[in-house]
């Protein structure tokens, strides 16, 4: 049967082969297979916990992306729902939307903290429909989510989007609060951002067109990275591109100028749910959270997790307690 195939290998080792075979005939080979099976089945059982109390209103799975702010928001939503009587399972630090969105559509998870503009551009496959109006962007997002059995609730005032910051010294010197304030003094200021800024509509051309700001100079750096921070510190830039909810803004003495003419796409925090999980009660709980959450809160919470290495569930709990969700 198989003799024809046994014509190579181990040539010159026939003596050894004979020894092996004679020894082997005396040993119960079944024992080897049993040992092998035992070896690979030493797996420890992975138990899942489900402590749904008798009063639970149902189980909801809350997911988060793999960055601290997403974990914090997922914990805030989850703990608020738990406070209302739901049993919550968390799936945090997941990959990007390519993993999370299918999981939501298939019911593996029930909700995740989304961002209006980014989620719209994901679900519409980058059609460029997002704009600076959070309500309009969310309405468009919902038109795409409808067919998928998903829904987005009311967007929060809290945003994590591109923003332009100045140091507190610059702010005081020129008395700045919003981007419009830069128009008359732009000629004295240097802008720092990623090298793509001079060609991107949300960056230098947008500042010029929407706000009429013409800077003295532009320095190619990064977006809210070490180069921008160093440039702020040594005074080589006056205005820099950052993320509006960056936890380091306070410790770096940076202030975000309000985007009063809505140049940037509205990446307001907005929970995205399966329609099946979006009962009136769930929506009420989450909308109440989003009504209270601010960008300043996000900066503080992000700082507590990213810089002080506190746990996301602990900072979420502290925020909820501050807002009268005692548990």
């Amino acid at each position, binding site marked *: 049967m198989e003799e024809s195939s*046994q014509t*190579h290998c181990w040539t010159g080792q026939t003596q050894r082969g004979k020894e092996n075979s004679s020894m082997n005939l005396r040993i119960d080979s079944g024992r080897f297979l049993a040992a*092998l099976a035992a070896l690979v089945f030493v797996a420890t059982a992975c138990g899942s916990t489900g402590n749904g109390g008798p009063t639970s209103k149902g189980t909801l799975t809350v997911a988060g992306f793999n960055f601290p702010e997403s974990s914090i928001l997922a914990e805030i939503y989850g703990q608020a729902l738990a406070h209302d009587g739901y049993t919550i399972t968390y799936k945090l*630090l997941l990959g990007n939307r*390519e993993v999370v969105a299918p999981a939501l559509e298939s019911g*593996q998870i029930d909700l995740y903290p989304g961002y209006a503009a980014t989620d719209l551009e994901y679900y519409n496959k980058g059609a460029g429909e997002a704009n600076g109006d959070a309500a309009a962007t969310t309405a468009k997002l919902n038109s795409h989510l409808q067919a998928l059995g998903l829904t987005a609730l009311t967007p929060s005032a809290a945003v994590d989007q591109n923003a332009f910051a100045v140091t507190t010294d610059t702010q005081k010197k020129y008395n700045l609060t919003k981007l419009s304030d830069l128009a008359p003094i732009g000629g004295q200021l240097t802008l720092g951002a990623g090298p793509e800024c001079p060609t991107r509509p949300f960056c230098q051309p947008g500042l010029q067109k929407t706000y009429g700001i013409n800077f003295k100079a532009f320095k190619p750096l990064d977006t809210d990275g070490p180069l921008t921070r160093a440039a702020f510190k040594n005074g080589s830039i006056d205005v820099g591109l950052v993320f509006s909810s960056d936890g380091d803004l306070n410790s770096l003495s940076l202030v975000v100028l309000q985007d009063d003419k809505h140049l940037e796409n509205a990446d307001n925090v907005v929970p995205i749910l399966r329609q099946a999980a979006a009962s009136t009660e769930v929506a009420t709980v989450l909308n109440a959270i989003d009504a209270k959450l601010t960008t300043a809160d996000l900066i503080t919470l992000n700082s507590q997790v990213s810089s002080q290495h506190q746990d996301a569930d602990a900072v979420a709990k502290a925020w909820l307690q501050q807002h009268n969700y005692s548990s």
Partner: protein
Amino acid sequence: MQSSAFLDYVDPWVNWTWLESHVPLFVDALQQHLTLTAIAVAGGLALSLPLGIAAHRWRALRNPLLGFFGVVYTIPSLALFALLVPYTGLSIVTAEIGLIGYTVLILVRNLLIGLESVPPDVLDAADGMGYRPLARLAFVELPLALPAMFAGVRIATVTTIGLVTITALIGLGGLGQLINKGLIENFHTPLVVATALSIALALVADLTLVGLQRVAVPWSRDAPR
């Protein structure tokens, strides 16, 4: 000195105070890492044994089989998980489909090498002693293939221990979850400790397998690797 703020605070490699208060995090991660690895290697072995024996018995199967799992081996895990999530969810099943898929190539290849290395005169002797084909496979060929199979299991185990970390993408990942946490929070402690634990786990697993091999295949102590 013109130092920037982000350099003012130096994150130590290991923040022992934080570590002390987060030990359960590491214990859970280690346990999940072990579970994912053990299931992947066990499942890979359960799949590779019949496949390897079939490919050995029917030579025509050999190249298509190795070719197929060679292709599976090249699928980027990110793409594989994204494709599987709608069907198998953010579950251990999704993770294991990927992990087992990656181990099968290593295990089948080594099983084939082991079976092919059985000397023809041993087979002749077994035939002469009246072994039926199935008994010859079970009592002569497979035991002689054990050293090569052990080599395969060792490679598969160590590879899987490294590979498990990528399942952090779907919320599992064992120690990968903590490595991920360290990376995204720019926090050395979980990154360093989880990496060290992962390396230690791979070493311990490999040494355990060497020990098991010495017990199970005592004649192969000086066998070429």
